């Protein structure tokens, strides 16, 4: 099966290890992974802020870059929702309408792709990762109806103790430019999420959403709560022995 990785702009610069892990896991699962070099950003910041022509141009560009791809897998649920939910709508009256729908149909978030396309059972593959983790639920994954896939995969991993997070469905407050335009509201929301993480007692937060991770990890760090943030592909890659278990990174306490 051929898979093209869509790393996303935040993933590329801020969370390369998630992309590396995704490539290694997909290859181990028998996929031929490629990386279309021209990819940049899905255009969600422009779309969300009302810059419609700019968003449409970037959507049309994404369609061209991934035209030859069989499946597109991304490490961000938010960017997946942009392609899946919004591209068909914003390009509905353009010559790219059919291509937008086709792109939407072949684009998947990593965990969703493993469960629904590859139909992977991590327990049968002997994936083992020791530690107590909680899962940060991403609002935009909920928007495209992907709510159970990641927890299901995490429960299949031997040694991983999944502890629940209070109010899992409550937004962490990132919201793209919202985080700086309305920083006091955004930071208050992030603090609530950080407090819930502390209360969960987990040492690791599984968060596959680059934007959320930056926000929540930043709030945890400011609060002096040392906790590790890892994406789902990193947990699985470590559990398959494809990546060395990483040191606590994103949430390490202030020196």
């Amino acid at each position, binding site marked *: 099966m051929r898979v093209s990785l869509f790393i996303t*702009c935040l993933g*590329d*610069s*801020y*969370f*390369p*290890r998630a*992309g*590396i892990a995704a*490539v290694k896991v997909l290859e181990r699962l028998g996929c031929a992974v490629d*990386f279309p*070099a021209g*990819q*940049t*950003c899905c*255009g969600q*910041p*422009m779309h*969300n802020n*009302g*810059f*419609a022509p*700019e*968003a449409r*141009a*970037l959507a049309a*560009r994404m369609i061209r870059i991934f035209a030859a791809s069989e499946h597109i897998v991304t490490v961000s649920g938010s960017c997946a929702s942009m392609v899946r939910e919004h591209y068909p709508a914003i390009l509905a009256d353009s010559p790219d309408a059919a291509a937008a729908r086709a792109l939407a149909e072949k684009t998947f978030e990593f965990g969703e792709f493993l469960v629904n396309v590859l139909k992977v059972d991590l327990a049968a593959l002997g994936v083992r990762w020791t530690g107590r983790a909680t899962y940060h639920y991403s609002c*935009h994954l*909920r*928007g495209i109806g992907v709510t159970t896939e990641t927890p299901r995969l995490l429960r299949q991993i031997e040694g991983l103790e999944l502890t629940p997070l209070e109010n899992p*469905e*409550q*937004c962490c*407050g*990132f*919201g*793209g430019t*919202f*985080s*700086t335009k*309305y*920083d*006091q*509201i955004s*930071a*208050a*929301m*992030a*603090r609530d999420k950080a407090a819930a993480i502390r209360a969960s007692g987990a040492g690791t937060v599984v968060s596959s959403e680059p934007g959320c991770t*930056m926000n929540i*990890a*930043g*709030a945890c*760090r*400011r609060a002096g709560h040392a906790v590790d943030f890892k994406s789902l592909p990193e947990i699985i890659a470590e559990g398959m022995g494809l990546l060395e278990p*990483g*040191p606590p*990174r*994103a949430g390490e306490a*202030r020196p």
Partner: protein
Amino acid sequence: MTTDSEAASPLDVELPFDLRPRAAKAVRDIQLQQFIGAATIGKDRGRRAAFADTFGDRYDSLRTLAGSIKQHTLDHLDRYLEEFIDNAIAAGVHVHYAVDADAANAICLEIAHRNGCRLCVKSKSMVTEETRLVPALEAAGIETIETDLGEFIIQLDHDAPSHIVTPMIHKDRTSVGRAFTRELGVPYTDDPARLAEIAREHLRGKYRAADLGISGANFLIARTGSIVLCTNEGNGRFCTSAPRIHIAFAGIEKLIPAMDHLPVLLKVLARSSTAQPLTCYTHIITGPRRPDEHDGPEQLHLILLDNGRTDLLREPTRELLRCIRCGACLNACPVYRKIGGHSYGSVYSGPIGAAITPHLLGPANYPDLPHASSLCGACFEACPVKIDLPRQLIQLRKLMVEQRISGSWERAAFRLWAWSLRRAWTYRTASSIQRIALRLLAALDGTPGRGDPYSSRGWLSRGPGMLSRWTRERDFPTPTRRCFRAWWRDHRGGPA
């Protein structure tokens, strides 16, 4: 936030409205955070449970059905309005049409004067908040008493509702006790049962003496000309049956075609707003008192209010008129939970308020509302008539860019950003500059981020430019030393 003074109403705002100072105050108000947080999260859970208990997996089909009933009515509003007016008149209702808030209040005052009304009992109605009817009645010398318990307390405190359904969500019982002592001259108590009793005794006398009753309307039924009113305290029934004149206010979007459609909407309204299977009282009022009846008003007037609604009928905003004012989107909204209703600076708060207020009162007057949302989608998921609120907020943001309400600096920055993303080389260059600059700043800040090049990062506690807002209360992570694309080039070959 709990004011005991005769301060100006939270709705008296300077335009253009700046949301930030109120929001900043609200997020630091520990008491407010506790009241609103506990109440909204509780109501949101209750709503989910109430739907799950009765409808299980069919919840989504129920929302689709409820939404399609409202959408169908709006798609044929001309026809249903005419049908409703004909049938209401046939049932003996005096139907009035008000183009805006002032016109609606003027019609109401004219009816009151013509009939010599001096004392008015009023049930809860958001549309009369929208027209700011009570101050208009009071100014005309008509004593007006809010009879919904929450609204009664709000009125005593010279406050304004901060939630569509739960107007005093931002208050606790001690502030109610203080208001009762100050305004009603009763000994202080904060026992809820005793407070309800005091209010009840006070209101009973008013019902008996009132010559004017004012209500809103939850639904208008075209085929029968009926007004449907949903309440929980029975006050609505008093207001609409005891006084000799009843004036109902309703937005033109309240129509539904026929009685057959009412059960669907009653089911979603009660569950969405208060997690009840049905409100305690559901009144279906068809005309004034008939000759053979004992109760009911001599005259029943209905004021149909436009006030910008026909503008909303134009796409892409028509779906906003499906709203049944259940308040579920407020309860579900993480931003509302943090800032409360008064931070929105207008009658309608929360996601639905953010989406309709700029249309009704001008986007340039409320430039913050469309943007003060993380677009998390919780409102859309909670909406029982499936209004795509995030999409509507994005549409408003688009309108603000097109009308140049967004700042010129912001517009230039986004266009430059978008331009750089349309070419791989400009994207790579911009990413490199960002990486080098932020990592340098982090190194100066004491966290250079040494170690694994693909995961070790520095942290900023004081960011530059726009990031300084991020770092006021959070740290900001820098990019890792190397990006994914560099790894791909080194380990999987090929140009990247």
